[in-house]
């Protein structure tokens, strides 16, 4: 590229040395003029020294000016060098041929010096401008590529974070679930997820991070991971969202937030506990075709302010009920005249649709939004999650036992008596029920003796279920936080003199049951015990 400091370089090509001298005489003061006396030399110099402009005679032996021009224009290295033909020939057809070959200008001999100077100056200026434009264009292209890459990174993060293998749980026949995330061109940070937190408890969530682009995608990734890790030891939607909200709010300089719906479905009873943090209301279609709204908000968007206590509600799903959860990419989808799709269209579609699978519900919902939007660009991510409950919920008469006792040691006998009746009804073998008696004695005595820092009366809730050979027991108390299972096992190999009784009770409990789990939720301790009788 020409610069102000450097004289531009011209290459003059003519088989008559006198003509070259003339050109040098006219242009030599302002430019560096290189010369070539035939086409071969001209092409070599053009390739090796990249002059800024070439003055080319047409009538030359061996290779004429036209051929030189053709070869210059065919070579990417030289094709952008402007060529001015200088010739004595004056026929119009020659001019036309020269321009066809890509010549920049055409000057007739005898040379008029001011004209030559002016034309050369013009062409060099044009070339200079063209070079600058091309450099700018290259910069723009590189930027554009980088931005596109960034968008792709965001989209990759986002799409890799949502489960997309269907059927999601081929070995579960209690429900069917299908999800879809259609990112907008500029990513919006939507996500959905579902996973089991217990054998029969499915955690479902749909969220929408404020903001766009890679930051939203990253924030989404963090939030989603946090939800999953929190729900591992906490099965209350209210408590999960409360904890995730505290965690996110405390270190959130960018002030991003999430609208979040989180539910935990008990696949046995059909009960869905859910918490809605500023998220669009999900809809529930019943087997009879009617649609109801889960119109409870349990708190603001998640991540906005710490210290919020979110609540929760429960809805019981019946066989054939379908739940539709989505983000505002649906309701706020716009057509070309800026009309919103809106909630009513979601409800209308849900009501009018013949009942199909969650997959077809997701597909028809998306199709409806897309046909509404028409040519309008998708402004926000669209997420749709549909679940159908497929079985008769367990009424579980005779297989469920709920007992609430007060914090008195004598109550342990009552629990064991009730359990023994229950065990007899369920045909639980005597050695197992005796072990469970022992387990109740250990755990309830622990709670009653050590969990309370006051002298008040407290309730302890015990729920027992027996299904499919699996005995499940939950003991919930509102005492001080304490996980009994963190206690180290005693050394059972010590001699009589060295034996100490500490920790033995919990050791017995752990050995008597197949699974033991402790959770702290809603300010209560819950101990869950599982015993499988079929194995």
């Amino acid at each position, binding site marked *: 590229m020409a610069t102000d400091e450097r004289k531009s370089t011209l290459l003059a090509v003519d088989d008559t040395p006198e003509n070259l001298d003339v050109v040098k005489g006219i242009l030599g003061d302002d430019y560096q003029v290189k010369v070539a006396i035939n086409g071969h030399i001209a092409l070599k110099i053009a390739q090796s020294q990249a002059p800024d402009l070439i003055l080319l005679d047409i009538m030359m032996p061996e290779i004429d000016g036209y051929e030189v021009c053709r070869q210059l224009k065919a070579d990417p290295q030289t094709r952008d060098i402007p060529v001015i033909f200088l010739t004595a020939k004056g026929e119009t057809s020659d001019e036309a041929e020269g321009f066809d070959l890509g010549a920049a200008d055409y000057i007739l001999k005898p040379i008029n010096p001011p004209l030559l100077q002016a034309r050369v100056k013009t062409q060099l200026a044009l070339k200079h401008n063209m070079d600058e434009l091309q450099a700018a264009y290259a910069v723009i292209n590189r930027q554009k590529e980088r931005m596109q890459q960034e968008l792709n990174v965001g989209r990759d993060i986002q799409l890799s974070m949502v489960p997309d293998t269907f059927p999601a749980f081929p070995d579960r026949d209690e429900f069917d679930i299908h999800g879809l995330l259609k990112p907008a061109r500029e990513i919006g940070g939507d996500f959905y997820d579902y996973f089991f937190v217990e054998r029969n408890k499915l955690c479902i969530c749909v969220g929408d991070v404020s903001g766009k682009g890679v930051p939203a995608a990253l924030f989404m990734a963090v939030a989603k991971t946090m939800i999953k890790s929190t729900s591992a030891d906490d099965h209350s939607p209210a408590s999960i969202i409360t904890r995730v909200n505290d965690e996110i709010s405390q270190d959130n300089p960018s002030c991003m937030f999430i609208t979040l719906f989180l539910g935990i479905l008990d696949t046995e009873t059909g009960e869905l506990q859910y918490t809605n943090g500023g998220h669009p209301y999900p809809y529930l279609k019943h087997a009879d075709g009617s649609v109801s709204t889960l119109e409870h908000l349990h708190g603001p968007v998640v991540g906005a302010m710490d210290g919020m206590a979110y609540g929760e509600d429960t809805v019981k799903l019946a066989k054939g009920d379908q739940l539709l959860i989505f983000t505002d990419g649906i309701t706020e989808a716009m057509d070309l005249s800026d009309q919103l799709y809106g909630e009513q269209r979601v409800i209308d579609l849900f009501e009018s649709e013949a009942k199909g699978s969650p997959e077809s519900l997701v597909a028809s919902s998306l199709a409806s939004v897309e046909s509404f939007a028409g040519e309008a660009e998708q402004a926000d991510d669209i997420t749709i999650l549909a679940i159908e409950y497929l079985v008769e919920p367990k009424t579980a008469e005779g297989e469920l036992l709920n007992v609430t006792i007060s914090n008195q040691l004598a109550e342990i006998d009552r629990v064991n008596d009730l359990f023994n009746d229950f065990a007899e009804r369920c045909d639980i073998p005597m*050695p197992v029920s005796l072990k469970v008696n022992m387990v109740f004695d250990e755990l309830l005595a622990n709670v009653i003796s050590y969990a309370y820092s006051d002298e008040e009366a407290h309730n302890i809730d015990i729920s027992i279920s027996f299904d499919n050979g699996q005995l499940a027991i939950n003991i919930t108390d509102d005492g001080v936080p304490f996980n009994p299972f963190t206690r180290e096992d005693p050394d059972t190999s010590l001699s009589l003199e060295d*034996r100490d009784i500490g920790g033995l009770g919990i050791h017995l409990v752990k050995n008597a049951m197949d699974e033991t789990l402790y959770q702290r939720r809603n300010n209560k301790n819950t101990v869950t015990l599982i015993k499988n009788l079929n194995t």
Partner: protein
Amino acid sequence: MEITVRDEGDTKVVMLNGKLDTNTTPAAEGEINALLDAGASKLLINFEQLSYISSSGLRLLLALAKRMKGFGGDLKVCALNEMATEVFEVSGFGSILNVFASEADALAAS
């Protein structure tokens, strides 16, 4: 919990009838310690009528074994049901107490 005691030679046979847990152990502990206080030096705790034992029961047995070892007494346990056998196994008590399958076996062993 019902406790009956009878003499078989110089051995006091203690029949535990019911369960040995948080609520019943204190009473059982009182009764058995009273036997030792009265001079008994050979005890056989018969588990035949015992439904279940929890760690409170084990605590009692451990205390008893330590006390009797202190004065050269003889403590035996017999007729454990499946549940108690497992608890003894898991707790390691099977190796620190003299356990016999039946009362006859226990009395026959000197």
